[in-house]
């Protein structure tokens, strides 16, 4: 009974006589191959002519769109030549979609996430993004995953679903970035003087932008230091350079102006007003060594 049902379904699907079927399949296969080549060539020509006008990301979207659209047209034509009835095929595709959906839930989720990611445009090819602690330059946004290249030149694949679900940061979205530098100064320092020294330093560092203005903010009074936040702005390309050079310059300038960057300090208090009495004694072991070295 089931056998007959399958036969009738196939009969309905392929309604050509047997001899024509082979011919149809050959022609269909040929059309499919031709379609692939044509889609490939047209996409390539498009990329060549438009490469100057479009960004890498726009190019990717257009390239994929044109390629798959052309391939789909040729596939429909090929299926038609093979004798498949499209209406029946689409009906069957509906059933298959449900089945495939259950079987490959993750892939389908990634696929749809990929489409959303491309559509949303939160990042583009060439941007640097940070996802769960991984920082890298976006190499490609594919249907299933996004490929990154880290600073260590490691290739990282991140499933699209993860990017849709979790938080990620696009570090190069805007042309300029703020470089926050945390500095601790000793309690004895004059904050006004430190502020002036830091702002003068920002003015004389070439890669630091004049506007937005550099800022020095007193954050809090910590255990061993007054914590300051020194915020300067730079072009996104210079972020790492500036963070490196400005910290070196801060150390040198502070040394020059005798501004103290304190180490962690602990004050012991016995509860009495009187301070602890300390007796400094020579280490007996050390004095032995000295004596020995003196005799030799």
């Amino acid at each position, binding site marked *: 009974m089931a056998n007959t049902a399958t036969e009738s379904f196939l009969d309905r699907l392929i309604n050509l006589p047997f001899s024509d079927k082979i011919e149809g399949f050959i022609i269909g296969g040929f059309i499919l191959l031709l379609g692939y080549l044509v889609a490939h060539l047209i996409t390539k020509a498009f990329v060549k002519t438009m490469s100057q006008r479009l960004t890498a990301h726009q190019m990717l979207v257009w390239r994929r769109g044109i390629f798959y659209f052309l391939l789909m047209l040729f596939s429909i034509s090929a299926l038609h030549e093979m004798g498949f009835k499209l209406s029946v095929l689409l009906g069957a595709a509906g059933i298959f979609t449900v089945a495939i959906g259950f079987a490959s839930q993750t892939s389908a989720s990634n696929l749809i996430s990929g489409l959303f990611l491309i559509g949303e445009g939160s990042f583009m090819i060439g941007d640097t993004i940070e996802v769960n602690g991984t920082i890298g330059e976006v190499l490609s946004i594919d249907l299933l995953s996004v490929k990154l290249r880290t600073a260590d030149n490691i290739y990282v694949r991140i499933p699209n679903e993860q990017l849709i679900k979790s938080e990620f940061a696009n570090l190069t979205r*805007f*042309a*300029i970035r703020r470089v926050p530098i945390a500095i601790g100064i000793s309690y004895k320092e004059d904050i006004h003087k430190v502020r002036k020294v830091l702002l003068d330093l920002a003015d004389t560092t070439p890669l630091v*932008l004049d506007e937005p203005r550099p800022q020095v903010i007193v954050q809090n009074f910590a255990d061993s230091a007054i914590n300051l936040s020194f915020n300067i702005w730079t*072009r996104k390309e210079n972020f790492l350079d500036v963070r490196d050079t400005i910290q070196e310059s801060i150390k040198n300038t502070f040394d020059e102006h005798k501004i103290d960057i304190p180490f962690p300090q602990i004050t012991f208090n016995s509860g009495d007003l009187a301070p602890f009495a300390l007796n400094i004694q020579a280490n007996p072991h050390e004095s032995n060594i000295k004596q020995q070295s003196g005799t030799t």
Partner: protein
Amino acid sequence: MSNNTWWGNIPFALDEVRRWQLASLTLQIQRVAQEWQISHHRQNNQHEDEHDWRLLPPLDDETMPEKSVLQRHIFNQTSSHITLKPQLADRSVVIKPITPLFIAPNQQTTLFVSTPLWLNVFTSDDSLLLDTPVIKPTETWFGATPIRGELCYATKVFARLDLEQLPIRSFRAVTPIHITNHHTQSMPIERINIPAPLLSLYAGDDGRLWTPTLEVEQLSYGRAPKIHLSKQLYDRAGNVKLLNNARQNNPENLIHLFENFFN
């Protein structure tokens, strides 16, 4: 030829070396049979107002500083001379009047502001070998927020009303800005964006370098002022000679400027 003319055609014999000190920039050019060797070095502590320049004595045992940048440009055969030309900045220059400036209602004025110059080195067949600022200006962001705006260079100016008060400097070009305030309220001028890449550069009789005048008209408060580049140079420039064409010849940039001229 006035004393501050550091540009022009420079003859070079084969294997000849010449050196210039242009403010804090040291430039050395050597002609070899098939290559031009150009090295330059910029001191760390440069000052915007420097305008001294001199030819340095030919090299004996004195060499360029270690950190200098050497470029070698290869040709089939090098020509017998090279051209030094001044050029305006490759991005817009934002000028900040040192003291706040307000144009009273229904008044007009011409401000003279100066912007920093770049050094261009050309071969006899107009191949550009070097394009670098003589005094590198600080970069700045010109826009209402850190999201929207453009990267520019920043320079502080007095925004003189009297041309005589503006000193003649070898490494800065004068741009007259003619501002008319048709509105009933004062027009504050905090920062002005000079579209340097759209301006050509001319040498005047008096030794100054000039750019065309920018005409600005404020029609109503809160709306972007109307701006256009005057085709004629300022009268006081006298007989002028074109030194270098504008870097860009793109009217789109002027439209962009409408939003951003004043901040």
